């Protein structure tokens, strides 16, 4: 690229003799990123998304700096070319074809009408409660007093009595919550159906 030619001319340190590629790449990258920065700021200016302060700063730079002036002209030409481009048009029968095709269909009911958010929230709540429950139980089994600095978390997995946990009152609570949620959803479904039937008659 043309802006690679702008090289840093000041004296390089001794290491440059050992690793010339490293130094060349770094300074080239700097020049490139500077150029990219100029272009990025100029595109914002051309697109009209710069703020007032930035806009006046760029206008001053375009007036005073030849590099900015040249890049601005280049980008403006590209911008004008793109705005002048025309849209492609499909065949003359296109609208007719679409209308013939949609005549076979009806507008589908809105997704929100048949996806009940409460069900999604209910499922999410169930899993969150499950995870939190397991975490609380697992942390409760850890022996914090005996853990040393090299092995802070040393859970004795043999101590975890999963069978006991799954058979105790926690499981019953989870099942009860789910039964209640299920009954609530069933009730909501039946109520809605009843309302729809009333509307039809």
């Amino acid at each position, binding site marked *: 690229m043309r802006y690679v030619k702008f090289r840093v001319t000041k004296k390089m340190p001794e290491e440059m003799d050992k690793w010339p590629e490293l130094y060349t790449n770094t300074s080239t990258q700097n020049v490139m990123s500077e150029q990219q920065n100029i272009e*990025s700021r100029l595109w914002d200016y051309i697109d009209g998304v710069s703020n007032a302060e930035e806009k006046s700063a760029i206008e001053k730079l375009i007036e005073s700096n030849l590099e900015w002036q040249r890049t601005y002209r280049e980008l403006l*030409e*590209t911008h004008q070319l*793109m705005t002048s481009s*025309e*849209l492609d048009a499909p065949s003359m029968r*296109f*609208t007719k074809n679409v209308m013939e095709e949609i005549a076979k269909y009806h507008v589908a009911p809105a997704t929100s009408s048949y996806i009940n958010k409460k069900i999604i929230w209910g499922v999410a709540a169930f899993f969150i409660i499950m995870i939190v429950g397991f975490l609380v139980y697992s942390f409760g089994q850890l022996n914090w007093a005996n853990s040393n600095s090299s092995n802070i978390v040393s859970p004795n997995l043999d101590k975890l009595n999963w069978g006991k946990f799954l058979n105790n009152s926690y499981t019953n609570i989870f099942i009860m919550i789910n039964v209640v949620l299920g009954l609530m959803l069933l009730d909501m479904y039946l109520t809605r159906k009843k309302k729809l039937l009333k509307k039809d008659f």
Partner: protein
Amino acid sequence: MHGELTDTEIISRVLRGEQQLFAALVERYQNYVFTLVLRFTDNREDAEELSQDIFVKAYRSLADFRGESKFSTWLYTIVRTSCITFLRKKKLETTSIDNEKTFVQLENRESGFKANQVEIKSRQAMVNQAIALLSPDDAQIITLFYKGEQMLEEIGAIIGAEPNTVKVKLHRARQRLKDKMEKYFSHEVREIQGD
């Protein structure tokens, strides 16, 4: 005929059963949709068929349009997902310019394009040819910004990215377009500059 009606008015009337009014939306947006699809398919027949499917899909899902965004933004989201599905069906990877297959595809486009270079007669044709040489992602983002009347935030909603990411992608796409024009149309660009 229905030029004075806004998109929202047309949609609410279509939803109330005036199906024929949907033709006004098709007429209003067919060129935008067709141009965007053409950026992906590179073939007018496929583009026309896919554009037709997009409008049918839009009609069927019209009840899902909540009016939170512009109708065009919502429609272009359908365009994008439909085009990606189309390309997947054709076993083409479209997600990134870095993809090897995309490069092969682009190389083929470029070699095919060279033969048609003599046919470039206007500034518009040149820009369209140059855009056709870009990856579908780059071509789409440029078309959405310059022709689809979409803001950076709206393009972000269409492609599922943050406005800042869109800005960076747009800058890169424009840079690549500039490079293509310098590479293949330097003569034409000089002529335009001399106008």
